[in-house]
């Protein structure tokens, strides 16, 4: 085998303005960067070559060394790593920071460029990249040859091997160092040698495919033999066992089929084959590279097992072949991680460029700043991005274009989003008794897109073009530009978001609504009492009830409250103010739930305060000795529903529940957790609800405006997938506190509860999205219920809930008019007023794909993709879902490459500027617990996360998939330290890092952290004395501690859920959990590293292109 390719891999991020954005440096790999040479300094020749080839290219030598580092979990995947390492260095032009790139490269070693080889490396890439560097390519090989020598040595060197393995997962730093420094030759050799053993392939076919092999691939197409050492055929023999799986991948059918090619099959997983394209097929040499990614990407759910077996550590196994092919060079091209698009950089850039100026919404089709950027919004006629974010702000004029690009057209709408204090909340408009002015035909509400004509007597609807008379009381003259004179005085004519006061016509049964009610249902079975939950809830409610939501902060809340406790029977409480003591009413007939009392169940807190407090004091006592372990669940919701029905109001149920409801009652569940199903086609049955009972129930709940919030305190399987059905369909939330312990989890639970109770929300809501002719809302994601295809019904809608709407063309759009959408949400406010909130959004239409790609928002696309994928899990095998995702992204990028990017070598990966993070984020989605669960992820956790994501907004999903990792170095000043990328190698042993995932906060403490730092944070200078169980930091009187706690607090306040703080000491057991969130690395469950995935992506794209 040979090795590889020279650089075949260019990552080019094409920015709209062509390459300029690359300003930093040549995005093109081809452009030799001075930096590279430096890095690779060790082996000048090699590097040079590579450099020439493409900036990014990996010097064979160093790269290789890196390769090992990459190896994913040492145990199972060593081979993979090897493969990667072999991979040619991806030239990630991305290198916006060429500079940084250079320095960082050293580390890259750990991340071998390996992937490239697999993906693109082989075939065309070589050629293309070469253009510039054409000559060099050949060079590498030669250089490689020298290495060949080493291989043998490496084998013997057991230690080296082991190290390599260890690196991937663990201590990156050392690795890196070693590689760069360590005698390049030996080390690298060793590493390489591994690969070459590619011969190993024999035994372990696919996996082994050493990077070197890839190169082989190239030869086929190209004569450029020089570049590639045609590989040792041996590789071919190794049929990748994994192949079958991979074949299943949802890659475009065409290319996929190719695998038949003999050569290809041998080494490549189907995907790869596709990628390589026909030319290679024939080439025998190709055997090579199996790419680790396979498992991760398309591979079935059960990633680990199969792969493990296949992959052996190449290094550890002396392969005869290796010796046979001494001459062969095994090059590993590493991709410099710093050279690939960096989320951090993108975020920082956006922050730097966009946070200073307020974002005005007046200009149609303008992409807003990223969610990570702090910016102010001025509403000038379009809804603020805090309310509506679109995947694309220029949408294709025709369905064909849209289909070609595969860019999803969707809006992520958060209708009741909270605005920062410096932005005004939507004005309330009252159009009087007749109600809001609307278009006669499509019923769109008055908005800035309505065109007044005939001197203001009529208006033409911007959505359907129908002309409607202006009612006399609304008449106003027009000025010379055709605008109404009062345009600026009326929010509905000048703003993107506002509210109407709804009239009685907009109310259920034509009756003005009652103020909503909150009902608290507390599980008082043995587990709930023992965990301390009952006690905590009762204590907390006493004060919390003073903070029920209200619109006027001065007035008392009009929300009424009720209380129920339950185990396998329900206990209702009469807390009427006139009673001296609360009264308990037990309903044991759970098979046919009903409300046992009317008067005195729902009360005003102030009136009944004494009775309520007495009740809350007594509940824990009453059930302190309970032995009842069984609970019901369905009847509990039914009871709440009945109560709201009886009171004729909407409301919210708060359920504090502990266990699987196995007591005899409607909605009884059985324990169906079966991990063996994970990874099979039946996997989806774990995510689907057990029975239709709860979906029927939720229908009734929605009809009544009964929103259900579920707080779970499970000690074992509770079937979140089923229990969550009602909350999810009613606009409620599910909170889960597994193994709840009073001391540890109290804060998190209470903060969640407080926020959940207090947060502003609307009830009994209906949302409809109207669009201008040509597009149409076709699909909706979120926590709601739909009984028809247009109305999104939400029993409750709080300020954190997001509804995602997908649009499809049903006609042509015109560039002149653009596309309009109006999202109207009819809801009952917490004071019982019926309101209509309207968000308007206008976007441009484009006939050029380039415009589309220039105005996309990756975060939103990822948000949409993840929701789409998570929902698909209900009906589709996980593997298919993952493959579909990969494929669609590949198509998006391929389409760009094909239609928008300037011609360049096929080996170059060219990404649109707006989407340059798509691969890394997509990888995070693919690696998420839901799509690729590790062995330790419970079925419940998956269901929980799945439901959680369905109503996340973009900023939450962003941090959820790509956590924020902050080095805690200097904390002075008001600004946050710049985040670092989520990779283990970015962590310094001497540092302390804060990681925010949206659900958790981790404080990672390096083993060599400075004593001063530790003292400042923990009050102890000794690493070993830090208590890993602490949930909050000690309040120390030093600026560092104060600032750190401030930061933590501010992080928490930004999220809708309280993030529990976990202190993770390096090399502690808990570190595994922490590492799980380092999403650029390979994951323990088999998820690919960023680099690997990028290579995979590249290959997919190339496959599509060819």
């Amino acid at each position, binding site marked *: 085998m040979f090795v590889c390719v020279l650089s075949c891999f260019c990552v080019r991020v094409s920015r709209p303005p062509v390459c300029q954005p690359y300003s930093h440096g040549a995005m093109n790999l081809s452009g030799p960067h001075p930096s590279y040479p430096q890095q690779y300094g060790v082996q000048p020749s090699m590097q040079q070559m590579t450099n020439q080839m493409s900036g990014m290219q990996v010097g064979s030598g160093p790269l290789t060394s890196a390769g090992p580092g990459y190896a994913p979990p040492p145990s199972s995947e060593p081979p993979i790593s090897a493969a990667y390492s072999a991979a040619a260095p991806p030239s990630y032009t991305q290198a916006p920071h060429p500079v940084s790139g250079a320095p960082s490269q050293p580390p890259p070693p750990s991340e071998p460029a390996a992937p490239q080889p697999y993906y693109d490396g082989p075939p065309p890439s070589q050629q293309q990249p070469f253009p510039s560097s054409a000559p060099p390519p050949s060079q590498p090989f030669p250089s490689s040859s020298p290495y060949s020598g080493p291989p043998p040595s490496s084998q013997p060197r057991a230690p080296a091997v082991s190290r390599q393995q260890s690196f991937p997962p663990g201590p990156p730093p050392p690795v890196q160092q070693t590689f760069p420094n360590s005698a390049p030759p030996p080390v690298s050799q060793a590493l390489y040698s591994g690969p070459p053993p590619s011969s190993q392939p024999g035994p372990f076919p696919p996996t082994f495919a050493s990077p070197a092999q890839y190169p082989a691939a190239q030869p086929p197409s190209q004569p450029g033999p020089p570049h590639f050492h045609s590989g040792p055929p041996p590789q071919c023999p190794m049929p990748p066992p994994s192949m079958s799986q991979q074949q299943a991948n949802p890659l475009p059918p065409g290319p996929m089929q190719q695998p038949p090619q003999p050569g290809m099959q041998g080494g490549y997983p189907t995907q790869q084959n596709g990628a390589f394209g026909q030319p290679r097929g024939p080439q025998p040499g190709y055997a090579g590279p199996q790419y680790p990614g396979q498992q991760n990407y398309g591979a079935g759910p059960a990633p680990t097992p199969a792969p493990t077996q296949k992959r052996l550590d190449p290094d550890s196994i002396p392969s005869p072949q290796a010796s046979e092919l001494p001459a062969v060079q095994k090059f590993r091209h590493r991709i410099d991680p710093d050279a690939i698009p960096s989320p951090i950089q993108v975020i920082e850039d956006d922050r730097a460029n966009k946070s200073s100026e307020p974002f005005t919404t007046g200009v149609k089709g303008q992409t807003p700043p990223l969610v990570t950027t702090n910016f102010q919004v001025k509403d000038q006629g379009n809804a603020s991005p805090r309310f509506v974010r679109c995947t694309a702000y220029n949408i294709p004029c025709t369905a064909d274009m849209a289909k070609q690009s595969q860019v999803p057209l969707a809006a992520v709408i958060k209708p009741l989003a909270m605005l920062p204090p410096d932005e005004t909340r939507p004005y309330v408009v009252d159009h009087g008794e007749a109600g809001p002015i609307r278009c006669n035909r499509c019923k769109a509400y008055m908005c800035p897109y309505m065109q007044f004509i005939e001197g203001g007597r009529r208006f033409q609807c911007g959505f359907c073009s129908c002309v409607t008379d202006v009612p006399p009381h609304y008449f106003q003259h027009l000025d010379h530009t055709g605008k109404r004179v009062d345009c600026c005085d009326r929010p509905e004519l000048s703003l993107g978001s506002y509210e109407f006061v709804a009239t009685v016509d907009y109310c259920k049964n034509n009756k003005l609504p009652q103020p909503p009610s909150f009902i608290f249902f507390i599980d008082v079975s043995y587990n709930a009492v023992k965990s301390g939950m009952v006690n905590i809830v009762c204590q907390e409610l006493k004060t919390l009830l003073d903070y029920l939501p209200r619109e006027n902060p001065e007035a008392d809340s009009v929300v009424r409250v009720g209380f129920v406790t339950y185990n396998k*029977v329900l*206990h*209702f*409480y009469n807390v009427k103010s006139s*009673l001296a*003591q*609360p*009264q*308990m*009413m*037990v*309903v*044991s*007939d759970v098979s*046919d739930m*009903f409300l*046992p*009392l*009317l*008067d*005195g169940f729902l009360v005003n807190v102030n009136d009944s305060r004494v009775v309520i407090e007495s*009740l809350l004091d*007594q509940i824990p006592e*009453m059930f302190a000795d309970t032995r009842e372990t069984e609970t019901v669940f369905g009847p509990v919701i039914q009871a709440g529903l009945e109560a709201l029905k009886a009171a004729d109001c909407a409301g919210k149920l708060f359920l504090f529940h502990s266990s699987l409801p196995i007591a005899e009652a409607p909605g009884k569940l059985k324990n169906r957790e079966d991990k063996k199903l994970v990874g099979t086609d039946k996997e989806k049955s774990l995510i689907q609800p057990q029975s239709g009972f709860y979906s029927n129930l939720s229908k009734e709940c929605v009809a009544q405006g009964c929103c259900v919030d579920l707080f779970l305190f499970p000690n074992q399987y509770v079937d979140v997938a089923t229990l969550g059905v009602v909350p999810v369909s009613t606009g409620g939330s599910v909170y889960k506190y597994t193994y709840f312990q009073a001391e540890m989890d109290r804060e998190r639970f209470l903060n969640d509860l407080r926020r959940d109770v207090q947060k502003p929300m609307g009830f009994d809501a209906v949302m409809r999205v109207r669009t201008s002719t040509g597009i149409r809302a076709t699909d909706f994601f979120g926590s709601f219920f739909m009984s028809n295809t247009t109305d999104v019904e939400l029993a409750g809608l709080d300020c954190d809930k997001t509804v995602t709407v997908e649009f499809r063309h049903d006609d042509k759009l015109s560039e002149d008019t653009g596309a309009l959408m109006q999202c109207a949400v009819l809801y009952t406010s917490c004071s019982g007023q019926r309101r209509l909130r309207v968000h308007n959004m206008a976007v441009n239409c484009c006939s050029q794909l380039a415009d589309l790609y220039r105005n996309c928002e990756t975060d939103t696309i990822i948000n949409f993709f993840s929701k789409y994928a998570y929902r698909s899990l209900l009906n589709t095998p996980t593997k298919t879902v993952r493959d579909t995702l990969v494929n669609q992204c590949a198509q998006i990028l391929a389409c760009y490459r094909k239609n928008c990017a300037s011609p360049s070598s096929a080996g170059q990966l060219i990404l649109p500027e707006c989407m340059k993070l798509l691969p890394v984020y997509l990888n995070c989605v693919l690696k998420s617990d839901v799509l690729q669960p590790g062995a330790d992820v419970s079925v419940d956790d998956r269901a929980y996360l799945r439901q959680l994501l369905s109503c996340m907004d973009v900023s939450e999903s962003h941090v959820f998939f790509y956590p924020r990792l902050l080095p805690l170095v200097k904390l002075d000043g008001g600004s946050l330290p710049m985040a670092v990328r989520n990779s283990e190698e970015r962590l310094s042993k001497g540092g302390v890092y804060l990681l925010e995932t949206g659900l958790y906060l981790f404080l990672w403490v390096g083993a060599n952290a400075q004593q001063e730092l530790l003292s400042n944070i923990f009050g102890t200078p000794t690493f070993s004395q830090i208590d890993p169980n602490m949930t909050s930091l000690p309040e120390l009187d030093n600026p560092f501690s104060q600032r750190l706690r401030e930061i933590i607090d501010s992080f928490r306040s930004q999220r809708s859920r309280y993030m529990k703080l976990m202190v993770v000491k390096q090399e502690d057991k808990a570190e595994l959990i922490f590492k799980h969130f380092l999403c650029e690395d390979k994951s323990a469950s088999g998820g690919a590293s960023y680099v690997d995935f990028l290579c995979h992506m590249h290959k997919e794209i190339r496959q599509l292109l060819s």
Partner: protein
Amino acid sequence: MRGVEWRKRVAMATYQEFIQQNEDRDGVRFSWNLWPSSRLEATRLVVPVSCLFTPLKERPDLPPVQYEPVLCSRANCKAVLNPLCQVDYRAKIWACNFCFQRNPFPPSYAGISDVNQPAELMPQFSTIEYIVQRGPPNPLIFLYVVDTCLEEEDLQALKESLQMSLSLLPPNALVGLITFGRMVQVHELSCEGIAKSYVFRGTKELSSKQIQEMLGLTNPSASGPQGRPAAPQDPAVTCRFLQPVHKVDMNLTDLLGELQRDPWPVPQGKRPLRSTGIALSIAVGLLEGTFPNTGARVMMFMGGPPTQGPGMVVGDELKTPIRSWHDITKDNARHLKKATKYYDALANRAAVNGHSIDIYACALDQTGLLEMKCLSNLTGGHIAMGDSFNTSLFKQTFQRVFSKDHNGEFRMAFGGTLEVSTSRELKVSGAIGPCVSLKAKGPCISENEVGVGGTTQWKICSLSPSTTLALYFEVVNQHNAPIPQGGRGAVQFVTQYQHSNTQRRIRVTTVARNWADAQSQIQHIESSFDQEASAVIMARLGVFRAESEEGPDVLRWLDRQLIRLCQKFGQFNKDDPTSFKLSESLSLYPQFMFHLRRSPFLQVFNNSPDECSYYRHHFVRQDLTQSLIMIQPILYSYSFHGPPEPVLLDSGSILPDRILLMDTFFQLVIYHGETIAQWRKAGYQEQPEYENFKHLLVAPVDDAQEILQTRFPMPRYIDTEHGGSQARFLLSKVNPSQTHNNLYSWGQETGAPILTDDVSLQVFMDHLKKLAVSSAA
């Protein structure tokens, strides 16, 4: 009391004493005090050999004995040793007078001799009461089932009555509370702090087992590992819903005080939803599960008809009125059959467990007693019917449930069983009264079933001293089988019951009557006729039939019986009505029948179905005196002409210068004649010179008070006058001797005409005579 005296006066002199003595001592009144010696003769007598028996007749002079009765050793006899038995003192052997089995005395009777006799052998102890020790004493149980769909005023009054009743209960009695409206709430009484109750939906029928499960009464751990499944549980521990009064007195008083009206809104034009059926089934289920075969009283207070769930009597639409007789005859009463069946089943369950159910129904309209009557009828419970809980009628009645006798013990007994043994010539046909059959087989069961028959044992879940059963016998001796000379027929009544002081007691009454040959001794037999008892006995039969047959059929049957009786005993010349005469012992009987025909027991006109059920309920359980009053109300006349006197129940007795006091058992009417009324209106009684008038006015009121004091249930007290609307109570009862039809022929002087087409007693008698003497009949 006056009535009794008066009645005694009219009764036949010779037998009168005998009958009275028997009634006082044994609580037994036979229709015939000489028994025809053959089946054939007996049937020819028309009125069957039968008796009214009051098992717990108050006998202040009868001290109970503290030992067990001695039983005949024959397995299917088990008669109790009694004064009629032949005893061989030397051999210490006694012969059973029913089966002639010779039994040795038990060892404890070793010292017996003709001078040293145990009480049960002495003739004056034909009725004797034993106290027996069997098992631990069971506390009495009172379970209140309270309707909360009441007007505020009513509910308040009811709450006060209930609270008051707590002080009347025996301190160790267990008490429980169930309230119902749209839902049914079973209140837990044992808890401190929060008041707990279990709530049930009012529309869903639950099995007894489900109820117990839902109330948490089936505690699997209760039977425990010791393997004593049915271990005697401490009731106070096992049932949180039934607690000793003395423990939960305060709690319960507060709980009752806080009772609220059913909070569920009642829309315009609807009745409140009342889950009476479910409430009762839960009450029955609760007791069934916790205290089977223990004396218990479910006391249900309801203010309207059941409107939902099983046992619903009427829908909640006000526009649909509750069923009337008209609907029933047209088969138009939708819920009638279902509801009746439902309550019937409940009643039987309760009866099986020895629990009785009282119904206190207070409402202006009907409440569904027709459907629910069996609850009380089968279990010996009371029914009280009134217009409102806020009336003295209800309050007094309820209070009187807890009245005490001279010993300070409650006049109630529980879990009674009555067993009847007869000598060979006689068999038992059945019983009519507040009882259910225990389906006990025995040698003396007649195939000819009358009332509740086919058994010799009946269960009477609740007894009061006045509870009276009518028992019907059949003479089975064949005509050609002579009765031994001097032989007597004997009947033994053995009543076992739980005394209100929780003792188990057995009362044994043994009576005997002479046989008489109807051929030769017909006069004797005739003179032994007890026309009062017979009237009641026949009336009970009529009422019993009326429950299942059409009204006119029953009347026709009664008429035929009467005519046959007259034919048998009347003296007349064929086809000459004027020659018809009846002997003194039968002279009043036709008149009783006349009034019975007009009574609400058989006439549905002017009475709602509920009222009929109510009247019949009381009629089939009261003793003879009260029953007679019901059949033929008593009328006293007060005037300046002399002391108060009983007068004929006739329109002729209604005179302007009289005050009339009528007692119909259910009503007490004081009627002021036209003149008196005018005087009273003019206020003469206020003037000192007319003090005598004042006394005259007061006299009937005082007498009425006397009756009111003792009557249970408390009668409706009506003070009215000539022309008053309430005078109808009087006018509907009196014999309409003067009507608008014959007014002029009768002259102006006497009485008040009644506007009715009913026949008068005179017309009735004329017809009777004509038919009796007719040879065609």
